[in-house]
C-alpha cells in the first residue's frame, strides 16, 4: 500500500487554479523532492496535503484512508506534519514551548523533547530563549523539531533552505537521514535543485501546477530537468 496517493488533485485560490489534476504516489520510507520554479504550485501541493487549502478537488489518500476534505488539525493526528515555509514559529513562545506545542497531537513514536534535543543539541542550550530570537538556522531546527514532536509518519518540509547560508543548509539537511531512519517518509519542497537531487530517492518537477517530470534523480539528465523546470 502506498503511504500517500493523490488522484486528480486540483487546488484553487478563489478563481485562480494553482494545481491541475496531480497524480502523485509516494511509498513508505521514501524521501521525495518536489522541485519547480516560483509559483509552480509546490507549496500549494504541500498545503493541500496537510489540509490548509480549503478549495480543492480530487482525492488524497494517506495510508489507505481518504483525508481530502478534513481540517488541518485532524490530519496532523493521523500522522502528517509540516515544516511550513518561512518556519512560522510562535513568536510568543520560547523554544521549548514551541516544541511542546508540536507534541499537542500526542501521537506516540520515537520523537520526544529528549530525542529532538539529541538531534539538535543547540536547541537544548537555548530552550528558554524566545524562538524568534534565534538565528535563521536555529529557527529552522525548531520548526523541524516541532513537526517531529507529533511523531509523523509523513513529514512535509517546505523550503528548508530558504534564506539560510550554505553551511547552515548543510547542517539542516544532515538531519534528514536520521529522520528517515526513525520511520518517517519525507516530502521536501526545494528550489535548490542540487540539494533536492542529493537527498531524494525520487523527484517530481512541477510547472504551472502540472507535473512536468518525475523519476529517480539518477535517471534524469540536467537538460531534461532544466526543460521541465523552466519549460524551455
Amino acid at each position, binding site marked *: 500500500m502506498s503511504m500517500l496517493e493523490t488522484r486528480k488533485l486540483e487546488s484553487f485560490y478563489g478563481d485562480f487554479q494553482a494545481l491541475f489534476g496531480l497524480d502523485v504516489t509516494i511509498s513508505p520510507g521514501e524521501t521525495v523532492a518536489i522541485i519547480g520554479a516560483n509559483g509552480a504550485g509546490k507549496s500549494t501541493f504541500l498545503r493541500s496535503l496537510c489540509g490548509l487549502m480549503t478549495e480543492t478537488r480530487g482525492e488524497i489518500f494517506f495510508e489507505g484512508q481518504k483525508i481530502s476534505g478534513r481540517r*488541518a*488539525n485532524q490530519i496532523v493526528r493521523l500522522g502528517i506534519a509540516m515544516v*511550513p515555509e518561512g518556519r512560522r514559529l*510562535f513568536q*510568543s*513562545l520560547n523554544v521549548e514551548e514551541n516544541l511542546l*506545542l508540536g507534541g*499537542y497531537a500526542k501521537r506516540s513514536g520515537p520523537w520526544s523533547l529528549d530525542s529532538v534535543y539529541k538531534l539538535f543539541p543547540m536547541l537544548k542550550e537555548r530552550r528558554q530563549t524566545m524562538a524568534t530570537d534565534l538565528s535563521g538556522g536555529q529557527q529552522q531546527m525548531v520548526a523541524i523539531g516541532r513537526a517531529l514532536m*507529533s511523531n509523523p509518519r509523513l513529514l512535509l518540509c517546505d523550503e528548508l533552505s530558504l534564506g539560510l547560508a550554505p553551511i547552515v543548509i548543510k547542517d539542516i539537511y544532515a538531519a534528514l537521514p536520521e529522520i528517515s531512519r526513525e520511520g518517517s517518509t519525507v516530502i521536501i519542497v526545494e528550489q535548490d535543485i542540487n540539494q533536492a537531487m542529493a537527498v531524494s530517492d525520487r523527484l517530481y518537477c512541477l510547472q504551472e501546477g502540472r507535473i512536468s517530470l518525475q523519476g529517480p534523480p539518477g535517471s534524469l539528465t540536467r537538460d531534461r530537468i532544466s526543460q521541465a523546470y523552466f519549460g524551455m
Partner: protein
Amino acid sequence: MEWISTIIQGVLLGGLYALFATGLSLIFGVMRLVNIAHGDFIVLAAFVALGIVSGLGLHPFTSLVIVIPLMAALGYVLQRGLLNQTLGRDILPPLLVTFGLSIILENVLLEIFSADSQRLQAGPLETASLSLPGDIAIGYFPLLIFVSAVVVIAGLQFVLFHTELGRLFRATSDDQETAQLMGIDNHHVFALAMAIAFGVVAVAGVFMAIRTNFDPSVGPARLIYAFEAVIIGGLGSPWGTLAGGVILGVSQAVGAKINPGWQILAGHVVFLAVLVVRPRGLFEKVQDL
C-alpha cells in the same frame, strides 16, 4: 489625609474596572475580537445573579457558584455557535454582530425585568469598613473587589504563561494557521478563551450589582469603562489592565473630589490624554498575548 483617602477609594474602584476589562482584554488578545456587547453581558450576569438570589434565596456571593459556570458555558456556546463564524481577515463582522447582540440583550432584559433599577443586597459587608489612622476608612467590600481583581488577573497570568492552555492561547493568537498544523482546533481554543472571559464577566456583574444600582441600559457605560481601562493599560497585558483600571478609578475619584460633577469626565479626560501621548497604552505588552 482626605486626598489619601480619595486616592485609596479610587484604587479600589479601579479593581472593579479591571474586572470589567479583563475579559475584554483576554478575548482581544487571543482572537482580535472586540466585543461591543461586553458591558451588556456584565449586566446579563447581574440579572442572572438577581434571578438566582431571589429564586433560590442564596447570598449574592454564593450565587457565583452558579453564575460563573453558567456564564462560562454561555460564552463557550456563543463563541462556537456564532462568533467563530464572524472571525476572519475583516474586523467589521465581529464588531457588527456583537453590536447587534448588545441591542438584542438590552431589549430582552428590558422586556423581562423592566427598566426598574435593581440591586443585590450583600448585608452588613456592604457598609462595614476598616478604620485606619488619620480618619481613613477602607470599605471591606471595595477591598474585596480589589483583591478579587488581583486574584483573577494573577490567575489569568498564571494560566497564560505556565499552562498548556496558555500555550494554546498564545500560539493561536500568534498564528492560527500554524496552530492548526499542530493539531489545535482553533474554534475550540477561542471558545475556551470566551468561556474564561465570561467567567470573569460573571464576577464583575455580581460585584457591580452589589455595589451600584443597575438596569438593562447600563451595559454600554460598563463597556466604555472596560475599554478605557484596557487601552490605558495596553491591549493584551493582564497586569496592564489592572493598572489601567486603577488609573481610571483614581482619575474618577480625584475628579469627583474636585467637583462631584467631574467624576466621569475626569476619567474620560485621562483616557484621552493617554491615547494622545501613548496610543498603545502605558504598559504596552512586551509580547503579543
